[in-house]
């Protein structure tokens, strides 16, 4: 197993900047997810680690060895593609055996390893079939088998679950995580699904427009997003983001929008006011409490717009003036459209971002 380091890596396709100045270190045996919307450069990054794309600038290191100019076949990597990319003219057995054949492993050894991996992935009964005769889930396992059979130093997974149905996806999520921990292979996992990334990875690198936005463990990403993009991208339903300004009145600090005014805790207000006045306030749907009747003076007045029952809880859409809040409330709360309520945000969970730079202030 190795440590993978991306040292200031960039990749340009003509004028298109797919990846810009990416700094990333993946520790030995770590499971890292590259997360971002489509076109953010995550697959390009993966293909650079695989050696299929050559970086325009920067270096890629496996441990301390520079592999930037090494062709894919000399990097000892295993990769699972989104389309699985199984060889249609070969049987499952031959597909899995192919990397070993290329390594000129003796036939008996190949046979032993193929059967071992097939058993591990529970595809030992499919070895004689062709890929066209397999279901999506089975193909995915075969692709995984082909990647694992040569005992790679690094495992690269490019959206391996995106072609599976929802139920199988949840099953395979746990399976891949268990397998990775069991084998201890350094793994890079590309996905646009934040739930996948949060549930599987040790650390997540969030990317947007070719740039790294934040690289941290799932809890930190969720609780302390570094900027507006991460705040909006991580979490479902997404964080409420409201534009406004911070003003001081009689020694107290307020977050003011045309629709409502909200008193900020003093320390936060001071800190924000010392930096800028135009800000965006962020608060997660589960961090706002709905109060019916009287609340304290920091609560915001609102009107229930629509209620969406999600089973375990309610997603309540509340309007304060023109601003729409999404709030997660207990399922047993009785609410009706048009009802007047109060919203009490949890002061400790407030995020404030600089409107100009998008960076987090609090």
């Amino acid at each position, binding site marked *: 197993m190795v440590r993978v380091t991306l040292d200031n890596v960039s990749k340009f396709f003509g004028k298109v900047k797919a990846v810009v100045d990416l700094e990333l270190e993946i520790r030995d045996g770590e499971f890292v997810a590259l997360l971002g919307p489509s076109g953010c450069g995550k697959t390009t990054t993966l*293909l650079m680690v*695989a*050696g*299929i794309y050559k970086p325009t600038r920067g270096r890629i290191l496996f441990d301390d060895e520079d592999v930037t100019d090494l*062709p*894919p*076949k000399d990097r000892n*990597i*295993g*990769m699972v*593609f*989104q*389309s699985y*990319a*199984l*060889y*249609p*003219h070969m049987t499952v057995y031959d597909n899995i055996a*192919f*990397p070993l054949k*290329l*390594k000129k492993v003796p036939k008996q050894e190949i046979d032993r390893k193929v059967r071992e991996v097939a058993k591990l992935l529970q595809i030992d009964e499919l070895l004689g079939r*062709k*890929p*066209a005769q397999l279901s999506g889930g089975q193909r995915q396992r075969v692709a995984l088998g*082909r990647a694992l059979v*040569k005992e790679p130093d690094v495992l*690269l997974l490019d959206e391996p679950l995106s072609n599976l149905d929802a139920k199988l996806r949840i099953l395979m999520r746990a399976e891949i995580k268990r397998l990775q921990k069991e084998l201890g292979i350094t793994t890079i996992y590309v996905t646009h699904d934040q739930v996948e990334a949060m549930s599987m990875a040790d650390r997540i690198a969030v990317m947007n427009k070719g740039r790294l936005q934040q690289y941290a463990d799932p809890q930190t990403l969720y609780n302390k997003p570094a900027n507006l993009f991460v705040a909006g991208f991580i979490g479902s339903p997404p964080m409420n983001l409201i534009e406004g300004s911070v003003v001081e009145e009689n020694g107290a600090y307020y977050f003011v929008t045309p629709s409502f005014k909200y008193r900020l805790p003093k320390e936060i207000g001071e800190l924000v006011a010392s930096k800028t006045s135009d800000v965006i306030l962020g608060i997660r749907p589960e961090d706002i409490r709905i109060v019916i009747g009287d609340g304290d003076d920091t609560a915001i007045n609102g009107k229930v717009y629509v209620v969406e029952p999600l089973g375990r809880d309610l997603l309540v859409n509340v309007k304060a003036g023109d601003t729409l809040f999404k709030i997660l409330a207990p399922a047993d709360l009785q609410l009706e459209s048009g009802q007047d309520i109060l919203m009490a945000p949890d002061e400790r969970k407030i995020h404030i971002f600089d409107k100009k730079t998008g960076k987090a202030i609090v």
Partner: protein
Amino acid sequence: MVGRESLRKRRTKALLRRVAVLVVVLMVAVLPAIPIWLMYGWLVSQSFSGRVILGVLPSKLTLENWRFLWSPIAMGEKEYPNIWPITINTLFLALGVAGLVVMVSSLSGYALSRMEFKGRTGMMQFIIALHAFPSVILLIALFVILNKLGLYGKGFMTLVGIVLIKAGLEIPMATWIIKGFFDAIPWDLEWAALVDGCSRWRVWRSVIIPLVLPGIGAVSIFSFLSGWSEFLLVFTYVAQEEYYTLPVLIYHMIGEFIHIDWGMLAALGLFYAIPTIIFFSVSQKMLLRIYVGGVKG
């Protein structure tokens, strides 16, 4: 009741429409084929009979017309060389062309489909333009080249020269056809093979080529048939009779106006068409896939 009646009317209308469509299809697709089938019918019955009644009905079954298979061909006052060396010449030409075309076009098609290099688009346009020239306008230039290469008037070596020319003329189109097959293979497959440990060459050989086999099959059949039926180049450049190919032999025999033996000519024509018939009946599906193409699974 009104509803049911109108349903019956609509059904009758639909039936009439279907009949009309059938009639149109019959007129467009079947009628024009009748004269062609009649001609083939004549060819077959004439070759096996002494006399043909009403153009297609054979009488007096005989194998006499096929005597060229075991004896020298004599027609009128002239005796032509034995059929078998000439068949072998034709086979050599056809297989040579097919082999060369497949070898070059499967490499060039891959390069044009998969590799980035300067002038790629220009080259593809140039290739199409090349195909636009009929070989007849190149006859003199090709003659000069053959002569310079010392391949003119050298018997068998002239045939080798013609293989080179014919393959050269076929390669552009074949490259385009095969390129289409390569284009249909997803990049992921090629990348997967690279990651699995292949060199670019090995990817081509072990993963890509097996997937474009239908394309290679189609191209080889087309080029085989085009070599098999090549007339102009052999007619122009080959002087010695023993290096004739079948089309040229048949041409010369049709030239014997006065003593023409229709029965033998029909048998010879049928003999010449045998590989074509075999190839098309075996490879129909494969040829259709040229237009459908693609990798499944």
